[in-house]
Every structure is written in C-alpha cells, then in structure tokens.
C-alpha cells in the first residue's frame, strides 16, 4: 500500500490507534505460556476497551438495567463530571478524596496486584493504596455485614484456573462508576477471574442489587494482562492537595465563560 499524503497517513495511523471494541472486549484465547495452577499472583493491567457510552467511565459497563425508584432518586442527586449528565463541578465523592469503592476502583486506569496468602487473596490497588481482602478459608459471606468501603469478599477456585469471588456489604456512598450510578449496601457481586494463560485473565462480573436495579447487571467482559515491569505505587488521594488543585485548576476550568476567577 502506498501512502500519498500526510492526511492519508494520519487517517491510517488514527485507524490503527483506535482500539477495536469488539476485539478488546472479547475473551482472550489461550495463546501464551500455560497458566500456573491456582495462582493469580502478579501485577495486572486492564486492557483498553472502547466504552459503549460515556456512562461507562470507570464503570462495569455492559447493559445497565432499569433503576428502581430508590436508585433513580439517588442517581438524580449525584452530579458527575462524566457522561451525558456531566457538568463542571459536581459532587462525585472522589473529588474530595472519599474512597472510590468497589468495583469502581477496578476500572480506574492503573494496574492492580494479586498476592496469595494461605487464607486469603489480596487485591492491591494503586489508588489510595487500597488492599481488598478476599477470604479463601471456606467462610461464608456474613448475613448482615456492617457496610465497608470495599465490601466483604470470599473466594474459591472453581477449577485450576478459575477463581470466583462473591462479595457484599458495600458502603452505599460510593458510585458504580464515574457517571453516578447508585448501589445499595446489599449489592452482591460475583466476579470470575479465569487465567487462560500465564499472561492473561478473562474477567466477568455480575451485579445483583434488587434494591437498586430491576435485574442482574452483567458487566462488559474485560481482559487483564500480566504487567511484570509495573509496580503498584502509593497513589493516595490527599484531601489538602486535592483542595489546592481544585482551587487552582478545577474551579477556574468550571467557571461559566466570561466569568472572572476569584483572586
């Protein structure tokens, strides 16, 4: 193929750069070194995927079910910085460094690390250096857990490469993604991490929350790739630093056109 003009070249480069949503979201096939037995250890990065809509920012994505009246009332009060309802400013909890919560933190653009202990799997995130404990000692989920920012999680191996996590007890102040979708404290998640080869995990997530949604929310399937050269850093959101950033950059950027910034 001959490229005759800079414009044509730019177009070609752009086409090559745009991730293929269909490919990125399809489960990865086993093409690498074999997966180790019952082991998810390592740093993993979520592969990019074209979100179906702006509502999928930092979100499970997929087809979002109809909201209940309870969830709709909350949704209407939540003013995001992203998506169709976005406006400058807003009340996204993370703007004041409140915990991002789960599963939103999983979709934040930074890798996470799995470490396996004898009685639990640790899922460690860069944002706020969060450690999520997934208990693997056979215990059941508590029937009436006190709410936690990152919930209460138990996991088990379905077979030598598939790890299933169930969780509940999530603090309902967190959002299901940056677009402001609500969840209740009794939200129940089922996650499946299928390590199809050494370098690849196929991930699925189902959200059951009858208080908030009229049917199960099935997330967009995602793929995690092993990132041996990446390290999880201490990405604490520091409220005082966030306030300074808000005063110097976020607030001027949110002013109505033609308004003078505060001195």
């Amino acid at each position: 193929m001959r490229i005759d003009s800079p414009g044509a070249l730019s177009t070609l480069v752009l086409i090559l750069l745009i991730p293929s949503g269909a490919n990125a979201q399809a489960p990865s096939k086993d093409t690498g070194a074999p997966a180790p037995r019952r082991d998810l250890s390592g740093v993993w990065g979520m592969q990019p995927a074209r979100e179906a809509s702006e509502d999928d920012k930092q979100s499970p994505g997929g087809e979002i079910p109809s909201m209940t009246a309870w969830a709709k009332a909350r949704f209407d009060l939540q003013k995001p910085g992203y998506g169709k309802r976005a406006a400058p400013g807003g009340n996204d909890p993370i703007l004041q460094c409140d915990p991002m919560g789960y599963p939103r933190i999983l979709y934040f653009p930074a890798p996470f690390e799995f470490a396996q202990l004898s009685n639990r799997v640790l899922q460690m995130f860069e944002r706020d250096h969060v450690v999520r404990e997934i208990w693997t000692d056979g215990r059941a989920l508590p029937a009436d857990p006190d709410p936690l920012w990152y919930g209460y999680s138990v996991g088990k191996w379905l077979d030598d490469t598939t790890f299933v996590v169930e969780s509940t007890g999530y603090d309902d102040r967190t959002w299901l993604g940056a677009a402001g979708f609500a969840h209740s404290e009794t939200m129940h998640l089922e996650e499946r991490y299928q390590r199809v080869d050494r370098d690849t995990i196929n991930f699925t997530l189902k959200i059951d929350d009858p208080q908030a949604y009229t049917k199960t929310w099935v997330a967009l399937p995602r793929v995690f790739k092993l990132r041996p050269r990446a390290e999880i850093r201490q990405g604490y959101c520091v409220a005082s630093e966030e306030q300074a950033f808000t005063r110097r950059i976020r607030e001027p950027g949110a002013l109505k056109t033609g308004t003078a910034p505060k001195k």
Partner: protein
Amino acid sequence: MKKFARLCALPALLLYACALFAHHGNTAYDETARVRIKGVVTEFIWTNPHSQIFLDVKDSSGKVVNWGVETNSPGILTRAGWTRRSLKAGDEITIILCPAKNGQPVAYAGSGDPGTKVIFADGRELAFVDKTVP
C-alpha cells in the same frame, strides 16, 4: 470564548488536531482539540491524584499569563518515564494540551488524551504513554 479565541490567535498557539477520541472525559476541557502552548515552567507539582504543571505564557500583547495544566498521578507518570525532577522552574517547554472550554488558562495533558505531551527546547519529548506495557 472571546478570550480563548484571542489566546488561540497567539503565534505560540497552534491548533494541532481535532476530532481525536478521548478517554479522560473531564467536561471542563475540550478533548477534541490539541493546542500547542509555549512558555516557561514556574512550578511542577508532583501530587496525587493530579500532578500539575504551571507555566508563564506570553499572549499577543506581550502580557504574561500563568497557565495551569492538569496531568496524571505520579504513579501513571512514573510508568511513562517521568520523575518529580522531569520539569523544573525555568524550563522552556512547549505543551500539546486540551484547553478549558471556557477560555480560562487551564488545561489537561495526560494519558487520557492521546497526542498530548511536553516538548523541551532541545526537541526532547515527554509523553504519557505507559512504558511498562509489554
């Protein structure tokens, strides 16, 4: 928009590209635009969750305007090859960025918007692409 139009008319500002897709999604910025500004760094703030670059830029009348540029967290920047010493006050740089929609001298440049980057006077570039991805 009048102020922004005036700023865009500066020789130091060139419209770089339009209609690029973006992932950052911050509504304050025009993520369909890539604008080039040239100036002198006054501060480089290496903090979570947003590092920030401040630089003095001369407008068409010669008046110096201090711009604030939001960028990524130290974690994301580190994986892109940055350190807290990557920029220092006095550095002469050009930044390709997404400007605020309202014409204020604030902007975004980071991993959420492909094509944004810092270019030093000697031509060296600092981009926001993760170098740890296999």
